[in-house]
Every structure is written in structure tokens, then in C-alpha cells.
């Protein structure tokens, strides 16, 4: 059947926070070291140790917020090890990630410098699992206090006179697991205690994020909202798309259609998870004051053959691009509660934007979806009705098309579409309500005739956006278009 989409251009369902397009960079594998930080003495061109090619590529994404230093690493990170002269910084073992040696050369100053270079907001995750209240309190004081205090004076002695602006602060990470193996009621109490000392200094106002649930652990959300909801601004949720599960992970490339289908099914599950966590949050917080912060999401596959298994380095194919598009559509639909999301992870780890090998760098299909979709950042989500056929494999079906529409401040409409079927193109009839005149339509598409297509260092542009030639007709009522199989399309409509 043909797909019919009705967009109500005059009916906003909320604002799509730009923070939904956030990222996550953990001290893990080659994400920070090699991927972002090469040091000032590297032959790779860099700005104060941060590689310029990656900086330029990430700037092009208009990254709104960057989460750091973990992840699991956050709950064994002691920030005082990562300040002062680099040659004097403590070396330690990152036990959560297989015993990686951490030299602490990339610490608080370097991270906040990166954020300033990118024009992005920092989101720092503090240590509850193995840290202390005092340590957390002093970190916030070090970064944000504008005046005379032991921590502010130390910051100045380390070369930073003015405090940084820090809004987003996570009080622990995955405290049900690597962040302390706590039970929810216990963590709720710990959260209440730790957050008390995450102070607002001067004009800086901290948005406090409590460690939230793993996937479908609704009891965690229920307990946290009941016991500590009044003390938080945000509550996190982590869910990865892992075909086969964590015990039997599958390759990132070389997959068949059954694995493609399973991956899409799992990605679509994010809608159910958010819907159910939201329902619990709504009971305790009907005014929707507390944001749902999906601060870890993305695909998780086997590491690339022949690479160190502790580095979590995986390829990134057209399949990952569809997963990213589907997630954004889900986040847009729930923008009343989802205030932020952070893909895992920015460079060289899991569903990354960028892969590097020494001085070489490539952009992944996921990067291109983030770039194409950035038009939705801070736009008004529009009411949309989707009537689509199924993509069926065996005796299971999922909707063939996923769609989302938003309106920018200047009135420009952007409509993103995903065709999940790798075999069938899709005829789409797009009906527009609430628009005057015939819009001028342009578009871009990300697709390939091989669902396994991906970019390599020898062929870095196998998958990249192209001008979309599939628009068949445009009128005052709407337009018709044909989407290629396995594609992500973004249409821009100027009235």
C-alpha cells in the first residue's frame, strides 16, 4: 500500500529540544585518546591537543551537549587526578573497560576547552559509586565558583581565571550496575544525599540528573520518582540496540536481512520504553517538570575482527543510519518529556559519528543522519498522522515508514522519513494542512543499494547524503514522493 502522511503545520506538539541531538564521550577504547585527544606534540594537526579534523567535523553537527567522562568510567573517575601539569598526573587503571591504562591527560580543563571549541554545553557525570560527597561538591566548586575559595583558587593556579558555566550534572551513572550495584531505594537515598551538595555558585544553575533505569526496569523509575523526584531536574534512561543480546553480539557488517529486521524491531522498542517510563513519571510529576534524559543509546555489535575487544570499536553501516533516524523520530514524539539524549559514543566506540586510524578520519552513516536531522534542533514538533503499510519478514511485521515533521522559527518545515524495507521503495503521499501556497521543496537522501554499505578508510564516501530526486509532484495540498529502499530522507519545505 501507499503511505499517506498528514502533517498539521499549524499544530505544534512541543519543542524538540536541541539537546536530543547530544553526544557522549567516555574514556573508553580510542574515543578520547586518539579519537579526540592526541596531545599538543602530535604530528596530527591539533588545537591545544584536540585534533583539528575531528573538531571541524563535530562543529558541523552543531552538537548541543556532550556527556563526559562516562558511563561506567565516571564512577571510578577521581577528577583531582586529571588537573594540573600533565606529566605529574596520576596514571590509573580503568577497570570497567578491561584494564585500560588512564594517564589522565584529558581532564576537566581539556574537556571544558573541547566544549568551548565546539560551542557545546558540557554535561559532566559525577562519581557516586566510588567517590565521596566532598569530592563531588569540590568538583562543582572548582568549575563554577567565581570568587575566593580553595577550589576556585586551585582552578586559577591551573590557568583558568574565570569559572566555566556548567548546567548539566549527573549524580552517578548506572548505579544499578557498574555504578555501585545498588538497589533503587538505596540509590534514591544516596542520590538525595549527594545532590544536596551539588551547589549553585554565583549565577550558575545546575540541572541535576539522577541515574535512571536500565531499559525496562520500571521499578527503578517508580522508586526514584517516588523517593527522590522532588530533588532532581532529570532522570536518565539507558537502552542499547543489541541484536542477539549482550551475550551473543552480532557483527556490525556482513549481516543478512533477518539481522537487519531484528535491529529495526529493537530500535523501535525505544518508543515502548519511553511511553512506559513516561507513564510512571506522569503519575509522580504530572506537570512534567522532570526531564527524561536518554543519555546512552545506540547500536552495540561485535568489535571489528582483529581489533582489541576491550576497545569496543565497531563499524557503522547504513543500518546504523536507520537506527539513528528511528530514534530521533521517537524522541521527537516524546519531546514533552525527553529533554536530552546522548548517543554512545562520539568517536571510535559503538555507534560513532567518526572513526579514526592515526591521522586518517572518516564520517560514518550515523554522522550523516545527525547532520541531516540538525534542522529539527529547537524546532516545533508538528502533529502528524501516518498511515503506512508493513515491512514483513517471515511472520513478523513492522511499519515500513517512520516520519517526523517540525517547523523552524522562520516557518521552514522539515520532514524526515525512514524507509525500513531494504527491498521495496515506498510511494509516499504527503498531505499538508495549515500551509498557505505551494511550498518550494528540496531534499537529501542517505541510502545505498547494499544494506551492508559502510565507509572505510580506503572508500570513505560510500555512504553519504545525496540530493533527493524522488519528489514527483508538489501542490498546495502537499506532495508525492518515492523513497528508495533502506533510506533516510529529509525534505525541506519553504513557503
Amino acid at each position, binding site marked *: 500500500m501507499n503511505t499517506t502522511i498528514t502533517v498539521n503545520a499549524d499544530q505544534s506538539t512541543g519543542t524538540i529540544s536541541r539537546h536530543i541531538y547530544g553526544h557522549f564521550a567516555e574514556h573508553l*577504547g*580510542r574515543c578520547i*585518546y*586518539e579519537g579526540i585527544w*592526541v596531545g599538543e606534540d*602530535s*604530528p*596530527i594537526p591539533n588545537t591545544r591537543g584536540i585534533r583539528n579534523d575531528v573538531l571541524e567535523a563535530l562543529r558541523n553537527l552543531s552538537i548541543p551537549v556532550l556527556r563526559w567522562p562516562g558511563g*561506567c568510567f565516571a564512577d571510578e573517575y577521581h577528577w583531582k587526578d586529571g588537573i594540573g601539569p600533565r606529566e605529574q598526573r596520576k596514571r590509573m587503571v580503568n577497570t*570497567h*573497560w*578491561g*584494564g*585500560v*591504562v588512564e594517564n589522565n591527560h584529558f581532564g576537566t580543563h581539556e574537556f571544558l576547552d573541547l566544549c568551548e571549541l565546539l560551542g557545546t554545553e558540557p554535561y559532566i557525570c559525577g562519581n557516586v559509586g566510588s567517590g565521596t560527597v566532598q569530592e563531588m561538591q569540590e568538583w562543582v566548586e572548582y568549575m563554577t565558583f567565581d570568587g575566593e575559595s580553595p577550589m576556585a583558587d586551585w582552578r586559577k593556579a591551573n590557568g583558568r581565571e574565570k569559572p566555566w558555566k556548567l548546567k548539566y550534572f549527573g549524580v552517578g551513572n548506572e548505579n*544499578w*550496575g*557498574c555504578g555501585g*550495584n545498588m538497589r533503587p531505594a538505596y540509590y534514591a537515598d544516596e542520590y538525595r544525599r549527594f545532590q544536596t551538595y551539588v551547589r549553585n555558585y554565583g549565577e550558575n544553575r545546575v540541572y541535576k540528573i539522577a541515574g535512571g533505569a*536500565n*531499559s525496562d526496569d520500571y521499578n527503578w523509575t517508580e522508586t526514584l520518582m517516588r523517593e527522590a523526584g522532588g530533588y532532581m531536574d532529570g532522570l536518565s534512561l539507558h537502552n*542499547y540496540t543489541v541484536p542477539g543480546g*549482550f551475550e551473543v553480539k552480532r557483527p556490525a557488517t556482513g549481516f543478512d536481512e533477518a539481522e537487519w529486521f531484528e535491529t529495526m524491531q529493537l530500535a523501535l522498542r525505544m518508543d515502548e520504553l519511553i511511553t512506559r517510563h513516561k507513564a510512571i513519571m506522569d503519575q509522580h510529576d504530572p506537570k512534567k517538570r522532570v526531564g527524561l534524559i536518554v543519555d546512552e543509546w545506540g547500536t*552495540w555489535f561485535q568489535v571489528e*575482527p*582483529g*581489533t*582489541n*575487544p*576491550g*576497545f*569496543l*570499536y565497531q563499524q557503522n553501516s547504513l543500518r546504523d543510519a536507520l537506527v539513528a533516524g528511528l530514534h530521533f523520530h521517537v524522541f521527537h514524539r516524546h519531546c514533552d518529556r525527553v529533554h536530552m539524549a546522548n548517543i554512545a559514543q562520539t568517536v*571510535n566506540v559503538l555507534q560513532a559519528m567518526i572513526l579514526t*586510524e*592515526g*591521522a*586518517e578520519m572518516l564520517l560514518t552513516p550515523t554522522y550523516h543522519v545527525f547532520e541531516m536531522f540538525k534542522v529539527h534542533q529547537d524546532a516545533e514538533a508538528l502533529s502528524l498522522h501516518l498511515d503506512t503499510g508493513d515491512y514483513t519478514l517471515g511472520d513478523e511485521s513492522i511499519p515500513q515508514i517512520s516520519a517526523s515533521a517540525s517547523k523552524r522559527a522562520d516557518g521552514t518545515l522539515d520532514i524526515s522519513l525512514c524507509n525500513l524495507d531494504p527491498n521495496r521503495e515506498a510511494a509516499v503521499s504527503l498531505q499538508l494542512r495549515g500551509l498557505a501556497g505551494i511550498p518550494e521543496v528540496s531534499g537529501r537522501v542517505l541510502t545505498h543499494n547494499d544494506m551492508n554499505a559502510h565507509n572505510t578508510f*580506503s572508500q570513505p564516501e560510500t555512504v553519504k547524503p545525496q540530493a533527493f530526486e524522488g519528489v514527483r509532484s508538489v501542490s498546495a495540498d502537499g506532495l508525492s514522493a518515492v523513497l528508495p529502499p533502506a533510506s533516510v530522507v529529509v525534505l525541506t519545505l519553504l513557503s
Partner: protein
Amino acid sequence: MAVNQTCKGCSADVWVTEAQIQKLLAGMEGKGFSFVSETVYQTRLAVCRTCPSLVYGTTCSHCGCLVEVSGKLAGKKCPHPAGSKWEKAEQASASAKS
């Protein structure tokens, strides 16, 4: 006591054993990979073993590759940011023979 089965990181280990590497190498046989000669392979490994960028005894920090695997593959190159160390060593080895 219930054990958390959703733990993500604990199984990831950067310390890779010789047995694991041999298993990887054996798994590559007959799969259509193009390998370098044994002489080139040993030249490459000798370079990697003295390179400061080798971590955990097995891994190139610039590409994350296990050098005993990547050194065998014809399509691979040394990713050292200052230039390929393999290439220099292979050229030196070739000129010494001629």
C-alpha cells in the same frame, strides 16, 4: 544471589592472550584474505614490538588493531601519525638485500 546479567563492560578485556590471537589467525585461513609474505610479516611485527605506540603487548594505540593480526594483512598499513613505520622498515630491508 541474583547476578546482574545486564552488565555491559565486565566482559571487555584489553589484555588479549596469545591463544586468542592464534585462534583469530587460524580463523582467517581460507576466508579470502590477502596476506603478506612471512618475511614482510616478521619485519612488521619487529617494528611494532619496539614501537612506543604498542599497548598491552598486542595492540596499536593508533588503530586499536592487534598487530599480530593486522601485520599479516596485505591491505593494512601502519597508522603511525608521523608516517608508516612498516613502510620504512620494509624499504630498509629491501635495500639491504639488493
